[in-house]
């Protein structure tokens, strides 16, 4: 009886996805142990986060996509309400207003929006299916931009960019016209010089430092310079686990969270980096396959967006740590230390598995 129940429960797991995720997590724990100065405390804490993530993933995998569709609107509206509350009465820390104090605990509503926005948009497009008009894209644009602007205003440009990306992917996959995409890209490119000329000197300087941190070697640039040295000195095969001098001697900043990739690259070299990229590619590829096989509009849009967003996280983080993208505070998925990021990932992976394992049910719906 119990065996049957468990069997029913794990039937919804996607083994390829789970296996790859677990491999990355094992690597992540090793790097965390090294990056934290061999602290088992931190590793244990992360293990608990992983257990929570797995439980969430399993629960979501067992939920039918239709049920998720049903919470799309309420979740989005809740998130939006909380964001507005943050803008009005949120707590300020480090010059940004991001947290909402509920008395017992503090929450950061922008995290919720990372999934609530794509779910909402996927739901909207599935409602409008087969009667899509230009006006629908305008509505979708509003659904997307309102929370993005609220988050950008906090200010939290990193999260705003990611929420925007996750929503944009849905709109893109729903068939946003190429003309519009290229048109706005060209218009934006043309407007850049004009915008630039409207900025004050100090604002330009900020943008310059964001794009090229080496111009501020005492501040933002210090991180990048040291991280680049760490990666470069890793060489072909790396300095070996626990032997990265840059990392162990405190030169790499934020090395258990946003910059953990620098520690990994220093200790495991180009070989390690390539393998990690391969594992990420497998996860993303598998997610794309799930999306392409999905039978309902909602499911395929959501799965496609999750896949592309996961990719965006990986690319932006590794790009920033290796110095080809501006520094924005984004963790490396599955690898960086932290519960919130893993929780979101557990939800995402669970959603993918739910789409995959319920596709027959959906098809006959």
């Amino acid at each position: 009886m119990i065996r049957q129940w468990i069997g029913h429960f794990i039937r919804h797991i996607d083994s390829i996805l789970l296996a790859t995720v677990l491999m990355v997590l094992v690597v992540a724990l090793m790097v965390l142990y090294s990056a934290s100065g061999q602290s088992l405390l931190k590793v244990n804490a992360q293990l608990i986060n992983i257990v929570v993530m797995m439980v969430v993933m399993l629960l979501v995998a067992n939920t039918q996509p239709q049920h998720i569709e049903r919470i799309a609107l309420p979740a989005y509206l809740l998130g939006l309400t909380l964001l507005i509350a943050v803008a009005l009465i949120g707590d300020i820390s480090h010059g940004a207003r991001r947290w909402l104090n509920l008395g017992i605990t503090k929450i950061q509503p922008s995290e919720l929006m990372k999934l609530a926005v794509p779910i909402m948009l996927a739901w909207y497009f599935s409602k409008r299916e087969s009667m899509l008009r230009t006006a629908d894209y305008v509505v979708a644009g509003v659904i997307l931009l309102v929370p993005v602007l609220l988050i950008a205003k906090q200010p939290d440009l990193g999260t705003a960019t990611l929420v925007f990306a996750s929503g944009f992917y849905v709109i893109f996959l729903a068939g946003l016209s190429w003309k519009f995409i290229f048109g706005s890209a060209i218009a934006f490119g043309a407007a850049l010089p004009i915008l630039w000329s409207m900025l004050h000197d100090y604002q330009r300087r900020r943008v310059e430092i964001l794009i090229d941190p080496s111009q501020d070697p005492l501040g933002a640039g210090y991180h990048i310079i040291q991280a680049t040295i760490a990666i470069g000195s890793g060489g072909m095969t790396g300095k070996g686990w626990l032997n990265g001098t840059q990392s162990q001697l405190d030169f790499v900043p934020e090395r258990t969270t946003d910059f953990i990739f620098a520690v990994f690259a220093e200790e495991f070299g180009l070989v390690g980096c390539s393998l990690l990229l391969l594992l990420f590619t497998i996860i993303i590829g598998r997610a794309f396959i799930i999306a392409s096989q999905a039978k309902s509009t909602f499911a395929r849009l959501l799965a496609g967006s999750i896949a592309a967003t996961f990719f965006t996280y990986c690319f932006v983080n590794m790009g920033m740590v290796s110095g080809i993208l501006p520094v924005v505070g984004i963790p490396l998925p599955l690898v960086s230390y932290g519960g919130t990021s893993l929780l979101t990932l557990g939800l995402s992976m669970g959603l993918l598995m739910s789409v995959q394992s319920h596709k027959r049910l959906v098809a006959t719906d």
Partner: protein
Amino acid sequence: MGYSTELKNHLNEQHKFRVRLVFLILLVLTAFSALLGRFYFLQVYRYDYYQTLAENNRISIVPITPNRGLISDRNGIILAHNFFVYTLEITPSKTDDLQDTIAELGELVEISATDLKRFKKLRAQSHTFESIPIRTHLNEYEAAKFAVNRFRFPGVELKSRLFRHYPYGTLGTHGIGYISRINENDLKQLKENNQLSNYKGTEHIGKSGVEQAYEAELHGITGFQQVEIDADGRAVRVLSSASPTSGNNIVLSMDAKLQEIVEHEFAGRRGALVAIQPKTGEVLAMVSMPSFDANLFVDGIDYDNWNNLNNSPDKPLINRSLKGIYPPGSTFKPFVALAGLESGKRQPPFTISDPGYFMLPNSRHRYRDWKPSGHGAVDMRKAITVSCDTFFYGLAVELGIERLTDFVRHFGFGEKTNIDIQGELSGLLPTPAWKQKRFKQPWYMGETVIVGIGQGYTLVTPMQLAYATATLANNGKAIRPHLVNAIVDAKTNQVKMLPHTTADQLTLNAENLEIVKLGMMDVTRPGGTAAAVGANAGYDIAAKTGTAQVVGIKQNEKYNEKLIAERHRDHAWFIAYAPAEDPKIAIAVIVENGSHGGSTAGPIARKAMDYYLLGKVPVDPTVDPSTAPAPDSTVINAPEVEEEPHD
């Protein structure tokens, strides 16, 4: 739609979706290839370069501190500037034996007990690899002597550092403020404002006054040198650099000469004076006496000096003009008068017959006039001129506390003036709601009575009273007071004038205003409470005297000045503006325990106006830029002054 069309649609859509997916897959492959390329570039192609850097981590970044902006008065007299001094600094971790090193150094240049005390204190606060001053202000001879013997002292360096100096010492310290060593709190603040990287290499930060409020302008932008260093930590090669940008210079609205004259006229008494240009809000003088020498704080003040300043009963560290709160006394009357006129409760020819006291209906308590026999027949103009208490007791009751406070609030009572430096108190304008909240007690009619003459709970700062006087002089248009007139860009020398902002604009009946102004002009004429102040002035002065009680007097007791200890004597207030027809200066003065506004506070205001309007300089000694004292060469250490530990 038939089933087949729907299916067709569905397939069509799935096809379109897959095309989009393929595009995304291509994007992923391109981006990941780019990353792989970057990793190859860093880890294989440039491996040797990064390998070396990591091995020695031999890139060192040296900040170059910018010059702090200068502060000058409205006429260009420099009030804060920088000069280079030689300092001897020790990096404890690089010395063989710290005690020996210091002892040997002592044979070469003089190291006093105070120097040692400061060194010990700073050492306790720093890391062993930080360089700590053991001696500052070395003269050329001493510097040369050390330079020759440098080889004997590993870990000791001769450095040339910029020091802040306030050439006039105690002059206007409360407004100009001072800089001092950066402490933990400052660091936290800087981090919060994302300024930490710009303060690498900077040791001092503005702690009070303009130095604090305009820190962002004065500091400038730190430059840097990226240098390659050898194993001994010496710079071998400069890889890249950016020069620092000096801080912007600041031009105050303050007139240093006026400030000096006023400080001198206080002649050792405690108190404060604020002078404002009514039409612009420019603060011409902001005096708080006694003052203190800002130079003491620049390099950390020593214990003795700190204790003297901090424990002095005269409280020199407090800026009385912004933080001293006193009952306004009779200087409040012109504003109550205007409230009476504007509300229509007191229109000419309204006149009372003053018996020398006021009584509320159904009460036998006598609210006494300062003149026991009374002033006889009193109308509004005369009430101001002779400062008739009885008249204002009755007026306050008839207006009611709420109408009264609602009106005078437009003159800034009970609210901060929002002057451009920090630490200002807001005083107090009492209302029944306030009293209920503060004391959980109802408001009594008797309390309204005494608010009419500026006593009771009412509290003002000298800045507030000067601001209110300026607003009155400016016919109800309140201009936010400010100490800084202009900011001069260090790079371009462009002068940016700061705007005058209108804080409040009262529409007043010209006839009503005229009555109050005439009453105030009569104050400095024969028969007024400050007739002596106006004598032979050559211009018209509108003024009002006032007294702020320090010790309460019982119902049947008489206030006898001679029998009361000096510290318990009343504070003397005087407010004025002149010339009365076209006001160029508005003043509020308080002389603590000065008894009568007309005799102690008034003359100070008169000297200030004589100088500002007529250019008259008192015969007594004055500060002249050419006789500025030389920088004090005794350097002092070091209890870190967090803040003035009182309020």
